[in-house]
């Protein structure tokens, strides 16, 4: 076992001090002299044609300085990848309640709001579609972009996995489960709402501080929609107050809007959302309806899985082509089958819009498959944990996609770890026989695999830079953002470890498109692996130059060098301080700024055949929830939670455990409370008084642990953790509820009504709160 100085050891997070002192400057904390405030006029209809849009009356409102519409952008501000169906501001049509139509810049927030009210905007309401099951009906109103391939315009994509013929196997199985499961949309609920600040530059460009996930993508959209050159648009990520996938496409719109207004007014322009505007305008985790059929033989061998689902992307595609694909890859769960089909269809509706959210389609499909697996074990009379152990993917197994797992497969060890930590056997047996008429306990388990990084979704590489300054401070850059998980700290740890210097020497710039190299999007739990490897290589390149200098100084060969703390030692010399070696390198003319690029191993996916190698590595995990259900009210209390994760080598322990705890909490909300409820396209919960996320008393003490398999391609053997911790939480809790009550809740969330009555009480909704909020400060 290699003995590291920093890797795997406790360390203070590099950006924590400014955060605990309240001095970290989030976008909403910026104040510049002459700064204008921007506000969007947003659609109050779920689907409408923009018949008239006249902004001139708004310009008469005192304090209003400028107003923009889609006409102020090139190609009306069209953007989006892989499907360009979004606009910086609505063009010709609006497709969801809250869609931006025009944007006002004014001297005060009040004047900006008055400006939006003064805009003459005439909308002609169009028929809308809110039920994903009817999105592809022949007479359904067109929501998605027109297609030339003859397919329905509301058809967004089909995402299959094919491995043999599960129909033929299912008829042969001794036990089959055939059930429907349903998930609802989830709000990211980052505590910092969306925001961007744009400042015009002297050369006619724009500098934007954007609270987003991927500064290079934000810059790209600004460049293309405003006709700016690469150096004329610069994007910096100030501290980002939470994201979870949510500060992507929508905040690229706010960035584009304030950039456009800054260029137009030649003044700084800032836009920050109220919570209501954030919840109404922002995209969500998509809703999914699933039919899952799984079968096994009497001895408990899983034999076949047929997973069929519809996914609701709402009004725009955003990241749904990618989330749908990831969902399809994992929809059968981490098991071996004789045959498996996944058949996922994604559609457009007018239910807001769905995009990236932690887990990226996997919390949705796991809510189906991991309940179905439990139901099958129950039908067979086999302990659900034993059933998973018997069938889970192990080293050397081939997945239903056709990929053979050759290393770093810690799933069975994770299952064994949570079994032991939770005292599973005793509790499972005890909770099978309870007599209290009012309160019942249950314990449930799930197993997880989750592909690391982008997978066959796209090019997967990252670049980091490292530089020693004249004062011997070391500075890193990364094009990846740290919106909370701690990647900036991971990079500093890796650089210090590789260079053999004190971590106090290392600083890392905020992500800045003028300083850092494009490293792709900060998504898919890829920062540690991609950015970490890039930093490792950059530091190795720098270390090589310093080693040459040290060997030259010490009159020896590089291989003879040793280190004592930061100092270099030769075969016969006294220790030479690191600074002296650095100075000698300068005298030798060696460059002290290097970069490192890391490209992920090649993978491939055949979209038609539904087969290939979708990810270069997988995270594995197992979780157990222990609940107590009040049979009189349906209230579920999560008493204990156990999570064991194979994230490879853990680099930053406080950060990694923080991902487990935070992921479990977010999943607990998804399981029990959170429901983004669109009534005819109008969001019913628009602030934290009605959209409930878990508080400190809802979340139990969490027993987290790591199974540290070594992954040869990861930095120091590391894989990933951020998303996977959240992915299986909902079915874990639902499986525990099922043991407690003897009844399944197959639609999320497992709120009081569903647990108590098995159904949701009908609640009449109203468009009023949305409409009022869109007109309020």
């Amino acid at each position: 076992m290699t003995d590291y100085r920093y890797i795997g050891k406790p360390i203070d997070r590099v950006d924590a001090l400014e955060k605990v002192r309240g001095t970290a400057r989030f976008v909403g904390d910026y104040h510049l002299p002459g700064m204008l405030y921007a506000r969007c006029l947003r659609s109050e209809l779920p689907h409408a044609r923009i018949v008239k849009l006249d902004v001139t009356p708004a310009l008469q409102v005192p304090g209003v300085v400028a107003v923009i519409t889609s006409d102020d952008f090139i190609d009306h501000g069209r953007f989006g990848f892989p499907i360009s169906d979004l606009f910086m501001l609505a063009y010709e049509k609006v497709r969801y309640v809250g869609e931006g139509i025009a944007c006002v810049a004014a001297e005060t927030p009040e004047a900006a709001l008055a400006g939006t009210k003064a805009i003459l905007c005439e909308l002609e309401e169009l028929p809308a579609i809110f039920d994903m099951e009817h999105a592809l009906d022949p007479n359904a109103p067109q929501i998605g972009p027109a297609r030339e391939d003859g397919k329905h315009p509301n058809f967004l994509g089909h995402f299959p996995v094919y491995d043999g013929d599960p129909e033929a196997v299912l008829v042969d199985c001794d036990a089959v489960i055939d059930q429907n499961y349903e998930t609802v949309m989830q709000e990211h609920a980052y505590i910092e709402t969306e925001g961007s600040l744009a400042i015009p530059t002297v050369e006619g460009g724009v500098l934007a501080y954007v609270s987003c996930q991927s500064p290079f993508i934000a810059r790209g959209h600004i460049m293309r929609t405003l006709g700016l050159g690469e150096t004329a648009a610069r994007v910096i990520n100030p501290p980002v107050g939470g994201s979870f996938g949510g500060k992507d496409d929508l905040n690229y719109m706010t960035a584009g809007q304030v950039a456009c207004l800054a260029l137009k007014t030649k003044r700084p322009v800032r836009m920050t959302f109220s919570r209501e505007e954030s919840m109404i305008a922002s995209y969500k985790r998509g809703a999914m309806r699933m039919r899952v059929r799984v079968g096994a033989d009497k001895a408990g061998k899983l034999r076949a899985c047929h997973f069929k689902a519809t996914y609701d992307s709402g009004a725009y595609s955003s990241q749904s082509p990618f989330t749908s694909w990831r969902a399809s890859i994992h929809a059968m769960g981490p098991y071996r089958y004789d045959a498996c089909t996944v058949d996922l269809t994604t559609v457009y509706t007018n239910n807001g819009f769905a995009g990236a959210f932690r887990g990226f389609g996997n919390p949705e499909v796991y809510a189906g498959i991991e309940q179905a697996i439990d139901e099958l074990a129950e039908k067979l009379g086999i302990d659900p944990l034993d059933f998973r152990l018997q069938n889970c993917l192990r080293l050397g197994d081939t997945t239903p996609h056709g990929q053979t797992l050759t290393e770093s497969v810690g799933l069975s060890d994770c299952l064994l770890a949570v079994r032991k930590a939770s005292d599973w056997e005793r509790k499972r047996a005890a909770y099978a026989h309870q007599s209290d008429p009012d309160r019942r306990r249950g314990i449930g388990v799930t197993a997880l695999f989750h592909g690391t990084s982008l997978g066959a979704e796209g090019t997967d590489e990252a670049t980091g830079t490292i530089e020693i300054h004249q004062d011997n401070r070391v500075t890193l850059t990364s094009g990846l953002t740290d919106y909370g998980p701690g990647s900036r700290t991971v990079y500093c740890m890796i650089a210090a470890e590789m260079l053999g210097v004190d971590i106090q020497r290392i600083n890392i710039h905020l992500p800045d498109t003028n300083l850092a190299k494009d490293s792709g999007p900060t998504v898919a739990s890829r920062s540690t692996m991609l950015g970490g490897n890039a930093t490792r290589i950059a530091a190795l390149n720098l270390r090589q130059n310093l080693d040459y200098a040290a060997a030259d100084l010490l009159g020896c060969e590089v291989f003879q060098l040793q280190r004592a703390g930061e100092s270099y030692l030769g075969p016969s010399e006294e220790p030479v301080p690191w600074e002296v070696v650095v100075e000698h390198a300068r005298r030798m003319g060696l460059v002290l700024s290097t970069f490192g690029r890391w490209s992920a191993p090649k993978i491939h996916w055949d979209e038609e055949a539904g087969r290939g190698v979708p990810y270069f590595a997988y995270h594995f995990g197992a979780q157990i929830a222990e609940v107590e259900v009040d049979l009189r009210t349906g209230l579920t209390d999560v008493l204990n939670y156990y999570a064991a994760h194979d994230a490879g080598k853990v680099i930053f322990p406080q950060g990694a455990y923080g991902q487990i705890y935070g992921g479990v909490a977010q999943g607990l909300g998804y399981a029990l409370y959170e429901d983004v409820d669109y009534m005819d396209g109008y969001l019913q919960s628009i602030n934290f008084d009605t959209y409930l996320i878990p508080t400190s008393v809802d979340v139990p003490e969490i027993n987290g642990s790591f199974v540290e398999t070594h992954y040869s391609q990861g930095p120091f053997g590391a894989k990933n953790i951020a998303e996977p911790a959240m992915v299986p939480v909902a079915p874990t809790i639902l499986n525990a509820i099922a043991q407690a009550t003897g009844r399944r809740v197959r639609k999320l969330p497992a709120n009081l009504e569903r647990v108590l009555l098995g159904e949701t009480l009908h609640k009449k909704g109203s468009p009023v709160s949305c409409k009022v909020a869109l007109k309020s400060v």
Partner: protein
Amino acid sequence: MLIQFTLNNQPVAVEAPSDITLLALLRDHLRLTGSKEACEVGECGACSVILDGELVNSCLVAAPQVSGRSVITIEGVRAPDGGPNDMQQNFISYGAVQCGFCIPGMIMAGEALLLKNPQPTRQQIRVALAGNLCRCTGYQQIVDAIEATAKSRARQRA
């Protein structure tokens, strides 16, 4: 109107409209942006400050209400040498900080709790934090940090 009060142990007098919140007074008029605006309906606690020893949501306090009273914000929490105090250092050491947006409010909630209950149980800490939402951490390391602070302060008093 002129609003006069004690802010972080210093007297202040600030001219501001009478119909704004304490949060707006702090952020927009005094440029103390450590207290965060995140819901403005008193649900999230990101704007938490200590008013005469009580934890309050500054978004629910009308600015004139603080006249003649004492307000402590995150900017007023520090060690005598100006560095982070023990609570702040424990938040760092225990990994209680992720995105950091809720953290000023969490620290105010922790300090307010220890003013009233110097040796809380973990469950009492959780109850005291129930008005402060965090979406990143799952609260566990925040509870760790406050618990450690309470214990170390108790040792110092002993």
